[in-house]
């Protein structure tokens, strides 16, 4: 098992395309930081106006609203960076894990050796799970790092759109909560990687595996968002519903029970997909 994992690790991190995701996410973080820095004055003006509109009276903004810790929060709440970009990179990498090796023939070279198929799948899963978490954490970490360079430190402040007024979370607490939020989104991405790996074990092309995984996520997100009675019945069981719950780690008062349940659901999705991948792989005939 250890040998299979080391082999997979070497193959994965010696492939140039592995780093393409990191480069693109760095570009995305840079774009958010650049936008925040450029628009800092307007942000403060809009913040003041919204707070005054919601609470009444007149407020003076003494500190900074646009700080380093705001960047990863903006990225997370923009949804696209994690749910589309990171998820797509993860789906492409894990989707190719078995399918691309099947189509190029390297899978038969591997499996003609005295190695258990279960170990091959587990090794690939470990590598892709690590990749999923590192991509997610990298997105947040690069946002914070660039934020400290170009925006400077400070507390996390935002307008509370639901409760009214505004929230101020001390910088250290905000960093801790953001770390939790990104770690939990990393768990979501492990679930995405597991699904992609499972599909990858069943199909012959990596693009097909990645496409099916992304389509599954989009479909799940769509069913989760539409207010139809029949959809509402399945919404509590959808992966995307529980992925979205992780955003509440950034609330002023965190409902940790809800977060734990969401984590269990997402973990359940990941475990089920991994077991599915092992079962499919052990039954698969290597014709290519």
């Amino acid at each position, binding site marked *: 098992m250890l*040998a*299979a994992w*080391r*082999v997979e690790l*070497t*193959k994965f991190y*010696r*492939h*140039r395309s592995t780093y393409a995701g990191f480069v693109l996410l760095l570009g995305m973080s840079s774009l958010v930081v650049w936008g925040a820095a450029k628009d800092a004055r307007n942000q403060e003006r809009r913040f003041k106006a919204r707070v005054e509109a919601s609470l009444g009276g007149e407020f003076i903004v003494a500190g900074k609203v646009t700080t380093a810790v705001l960047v990863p929060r903006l990225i997370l709440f923009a949804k696209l960076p994690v749910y589309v970009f990171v998820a797509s990179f993860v789906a492409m990498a894990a989707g190719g894990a078995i399918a691309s090796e099947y189509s*190029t*023939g*390297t899978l*038969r*070279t*591997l*499996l*003609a*050796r*005295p*190695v*258990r198929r279960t170990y091959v799948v587990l090794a690939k899963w470990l590598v892709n799970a690590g990749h999923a978490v590192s991509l997610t954490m990298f997105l947040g970490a690069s946002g914070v790092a660039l934020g400290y360079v170009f925006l400077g430190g400070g507390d996390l402040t935002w307008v509370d759109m639901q409760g009214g007024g505004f929230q101020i979370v001390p910088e250290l607490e905000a960093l801790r909560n953001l770390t939790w939020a990104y770690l939990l989104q990393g768990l979501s991405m492990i679930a995405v990687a597991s699904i992609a790996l499972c599909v990858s074990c069943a199909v012959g092309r990596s693009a097909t595996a990645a496409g099916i995984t992304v389509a599954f996520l989009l479909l799940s997100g769509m069913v989760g968002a539409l207010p139809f009675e029949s959809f509402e019945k399945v919404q509590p069981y959808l992966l995307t519903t529980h992925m979205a719950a992780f955003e509440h780690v950034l609330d002023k008062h965190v409902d940790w029970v809800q977060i734990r349940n969401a984590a269990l659901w997402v973990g359940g999705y990941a475990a089920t997909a991994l077991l599915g991948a092992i079962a499919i792989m052990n039954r698969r*005939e*290597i*014709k290519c």
Partner: protein
Amino acid sequence: MDAVIRTSGLTKRFGKRLAVDGLDLEVRRGEIFGFLGPNGAGKSTTIRMLLGLLRPNGGEAWLLGARVPQERLRVGAQVGALVEAPAFYDYLSGRRNLELLARLSGKCERGRVDEVLELVGLRDRQRDRVGAYSHGMKQRLGIAQALLPKPALVILDEPASGLDPQGLVEVRELMRHLCEEEGMTVFLSSHLLHEVELICTDVGVVSQGRLIRRGKVADLLSRSASQADVHVDDLARAVEVAHGLPYVTGTEARDGWLRVTLAGEMIADLNRDLVAAGLGVSALAPARSTLEEIYLTLMAESAHAGGLAG
């Protein structure tokens, strides 16, 4: 002699198509066994079943005494294989590919990668990316990876495919070296019948998923119909005389020579009878059938039998 490969009634279907049809095969220790057959005869499917890549629909197979696929892992480290076209990670060097595969090859001695690179003549190009290798070089690397675990049995699917004449000679010598010096049993499938004739000690011929002939190469060649090439002063008369001889089963005139097919070792009788008929025989040489001719005859017979059965 103990069998390193044994199959009994091995069967594989792909949908309605019967790829391997009750194959009974035995390969013994120390043989260089050539597995012959036309495209789609079931050679690669058989090899894949032996290696656990495909599951048989019926029958049983054993590798080095272990039942496959159930007990394949037990003897996996003693089996090296190249299945169809060699496939590697193009973005890694040849050496790195071998190092990775060595980790999955059970007990692989330190320095074995260097040994196999030397054996297949890739030492100078070991640091190059496999993507930059020619087909022949990939083929050599494919043979190298099969030899990594110092296996007792090497299974090679078309090992000579894509090799230049020099490469063919080297592979031929390598096969002999593996068998004679390293004590390995070699099981190879090939379309290059001349190579098989030169390399292999034994052959098995499959057609439509069934084994239609199995034996030692030397026996097959000696048992084939005896033929003689005759040069005479009157070719037309010689054809006429030959047709009248009871032990002549066929004649073919070409390039001023007459090829006579005999029912047994009757070359001396042929010479005597031609001379007795007043013909001047200036040359007479026994003509041995090649493996290719035997193979083509077998295929024709198999197609005819298949046609009759159909």
